C-alpha cells in the first residue's frame, strides 16, 4: 500500500487507511529517533527542501532532522534571504526549487491554499507544514500518533480542544483527522474565537470548560496570540487564563488517564499552568519527539511512492 497523492496538503485529502499507514510506519521511525545511531539510508540521494515563509522553530527543525536522519539532503530556504524578498511569485520560487532536483518541498506559508497552488505547478511532492488558518496535517498526524501510542487506538476517544479554534490550523486538521479515525472531538473557546460552521466539520461545540473536559481522553490546549487583543477578540490574556486556561484541578472531571497536549510553543500561565505542563499527564515533549518520527514516515512514503 502506498499514499495515493504525491502531496500531503491536508488531512482533508487523506483516507483512514493512509493515516494508519503513516502512523504504523512512524512506530519504527521512532525507534531510530530514540537510538544512538540516528542515520538510515532510506532517503539517500534524495533532497528535501523546507520552504518556510513564516517563522518556525520546532516544525522546521523537526522536518530537517527527519530528512537528515533518513540520509536525505536537507536544505532550508530562508525567506528573508531568498528571491521572495525581491517579489518572486510562489509558483516561480517553487519551479526554481523543482528544477534544481528537489524531491520534496515542505512549505509553511501564511496564506491558506499556498501549498495547494505550489503542488499544482511543481513535480516534487509538496508537504503542507501549515498554511494560514487552514491546515497543519503533520501536526495532526503527530498528535494522533501520540494519542494512539498512549491509548492503543483512536476510535472512540473523546478529545477536547480548548482555545483559539478560529485561527488554528492545528484544530482544523485534528478535527478532520480525528473524525476520520472515529474519535469524538469537542471544542471550547471564547465565543469570538469560534468560526462559523465549525461544527459541520465534525466537532461538538461545548458551552463550558467542564462540559468539554468531562470524561475526556485527551485535552489539547491551543496557543493564544497577543494580537487577538488588538482585534477585540478577547479583552486580556489574564481574562483568557481565568475562563479558558487549563490547570491541574480541571483533570478531575476527565478520565483518570487523560493526556494533556499542546502543539507548542506554550504561553505558560495562559493556556495552561506550569504545573499542568510539567505534570505526568502532559505529553507535550513526547509530541515533539513523535513529530520527528511521523515526518520521517511521511518523507519515506512520499519519496518512495514510485518505487513501491
Amino acid at each position: 500500500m502506498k499514499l495515493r497523492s504525491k502531496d500531503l496538503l491536508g488531512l482533508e485529502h487523506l483516507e483512514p487507511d493512509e493515516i494508519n499507514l503513516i502512523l504504523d510506519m512512524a512506530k519504527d521511525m521512532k525507534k531510530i529517533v530514540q537510538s544512538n545511531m540516528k542515520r538510515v539510508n532510506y532517503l539517500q540521494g534524495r533532497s528535501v527542501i523546507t520552504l518556510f515563509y513564516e517563522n518556525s522553530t520546532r516544525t522546521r527543525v523537526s522536518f530537517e532532522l527527519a530528512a537528515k536522519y533518513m540520509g536525505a539532503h536537507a536544505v532550508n530556504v530562508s525567506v528573508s534571504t531568498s528571491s521572495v524578498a525581491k517579489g518572486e511569485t510562489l509558483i516561480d520560487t517553487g519551479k526554481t526549487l523543482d528544477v534544481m532536483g528537489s524531491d520534496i518541498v515542505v512549505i509553511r506559508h501564511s496564506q491558506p491554499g499556498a501549498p495547494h497552488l505550489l503542488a499544482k505547478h511543481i513535480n516534487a511532492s509538496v508537504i503542507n507544514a501549515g498554511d494560514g488558518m487552514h491546515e497543519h496535517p503533520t501536526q495532526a498526524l503527530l498528535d494522533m500518533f501520540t494519542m494512539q501510542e498512549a491509548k492503543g487506538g483512536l476510535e472512540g476517544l473523546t478529545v477536547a480542544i480548548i482555545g483559539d479554534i478560529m485561527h488554528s490550523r492545528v484544530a482544523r486538521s485534528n478535527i478532520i483527522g480525528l473524525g476520520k479515525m472515529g474519535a469524538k472531538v469537542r471544542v471550547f473557546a471564547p465565543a469570538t474565537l469560534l468560526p462559523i460552521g465549525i461544527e459541520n466539520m465534525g466537532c461538538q461545540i461545548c458551552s463550558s470548560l467542564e462540559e468539554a473536559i468531562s470524561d475526556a481522553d485527551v485535552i489539547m490546549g491551543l496557543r493564544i496570540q497577543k494580537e487577538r487583543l488588538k482585534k477585540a477578540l478577547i479583552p486580556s490574556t489574564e481574562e483568557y487564563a481565568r475562563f479558558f486556561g487549563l490547570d491541574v484541578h480541571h483533570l478531575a472531571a476527565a478520565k483518570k488517564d487523560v493526556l494533556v497536549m499542546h502543539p507548542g510553543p506554550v504561553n505558560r500561565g495562559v493556556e495552561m499552568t506550569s504545573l499542568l505542563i510539567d505534570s505526568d499527564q502532559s505529553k507535550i515533549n513526547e509530541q515533539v519527539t513523535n513529530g520527528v518520527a511521523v515526518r520521517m514516515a511521511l518523507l519515506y512514503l512520499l519519496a518512495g511512492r514510485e518505487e513501491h
Partner: protein
Amino acid sequence: MKILIKHGTIITRDKTETNRDILIENGRISRIGEGINEAADLVIDATGLAVLPGLVDAHCHLRDPGYEYKEDIRTGSMSAAKGGFTSIACMPNTNPVIDNESIVRTIMDKASREGVVNIYPIGAITKGLEGNELSEMGSMKEAGIVAVSDDGRPVMQASVMKKALIYANGFGLTVISHCEDLNLAEGGSMNEGETCTRLGLHGIPSAAEDVMVSREIILSEYTGMPVHIAHVSTRGSVEMIRQAKKRGVRVTAETCPHYFTLTEKACEGYNTNAKMNPPLRTQEDVDAVIEGLRDGTIDIIATDHAPHHFDEKNVEFELAPNGIVGFETALPLALTYLVKPGILTMNQLVDKMSAKPAEILKINKGDIRTGADADLVLVNLNEEYIIDPDEFLCKSKNTPFGGFRVCGRVKYTFVGGKIVYNDK
C-alpha cells in the same frame, strides 16, 4: 449607408413584435414595420433572431488609463460589443483616478477614437477615491460623466456620503454606492461562513454589506436624494431595499450575474476566479437576489466587468485581486438562469439590461423606436453552447463560468447603425 434588418422579433421592455423589419439610415432607426421593401446597402435576414435594444451596462471597469495590461478601451469595448452591450459606464478606479475634468476628457477622446461602443465615464465621488473631499462633479458632468461612484472603495464617512448625495443631485448625477463597511469586512477575502471556515480564509460577513445599504437608505430618505446601490449580493440588502421602496425612498439597485448563479462554494479549491467584492454568498442569498429581480426590488443587472491579468489571479487566494470579467457572459447567463426558468420575461430582461440602466444613467438609450439611435443587438435566444474563455475578446480571461452550458448567442451588435460585432 442604409441597413435593412428583415423578419426579426423586436423585444423591448414594453412589447414583443414578431416578423418586423427595421430600416436604419444615418445611424438612426428611420422605419419599423412589416414588409419594408426598400433598397438598402445591406440587408440582414433576422428570421429566428430576437432584436433587442443594445444592452446598457451601468457598471464596468475598463482599466484605461493605468492598467492597460488588463484591458483597454478598445478591447473592453469590443468585448462589450460581443456581449451585446452598446453603452457602458466605466468606473473611476483607473490610474489616474477619474476625479477631474481633464481625465474625463482624455477618456472621452480615446473612447471616440478607439471605442466601438458608447462609453460613459463615471466620476469619483471623492478626490482620489479617498473618501474625504468631494470631487469636481459639475466640471466632470460637463465633460461627459453620467454618474459618480467610489466603486471598489466605500465612502466610509456618512457625513461625506450625505453631502455627496445632495451635491451630486444638484447636477442631476446619480450616486452609485459600493456598500461595504470596511471595519466589518476586516480585509477578508470571501464570504464569512462554513466554506470560509473550512478553507481557513478570512471572512467578509454579509453584515458588512447590509450595514452600508441601511446607511445609504437612511441617508437617501433623510435627504430626499436618490441613491443607486451597486452589486447587491445579500438577502439582507434585498429585504431592506424592498422595504425602502415601499416607503417611497428613492433607491435603485443592481446585481450582477454571478450573484444569481453562484454561491461561495465556487471558491473551493482556492479558485481565484471566484473571488470578487462583494464576495459570492450562500444559496439563501442567491435565492433572495433572484426573488428581488423577480419582484422588481432589484432594478437592473450590471456586469461589474473587472478584468485582471492571468498572473495576478494565479497566486495565493488572499493575494489575488477581486473581480471577474462579465461582458461576454452576462446576457447568456441571464437568459439561461432567469428567462429560461421563467423568473423574468424577455421584456423584463430587456428592461433590466437596457431600458432601466439607461434611465438610471439618464442617457437616451434602451428602446427601439423610430428616430432612436440604431443601437441594436440581434440574438439567437435558442443557441446553446459552452462558455470558452479563450474565445473572449476581452484582454483578460478571469471568469468562473468557463465550461458552463448556456443558451443565447449574440449574432450582430449595432452601435449608431454600424455593425460593431458579427458572429460568423
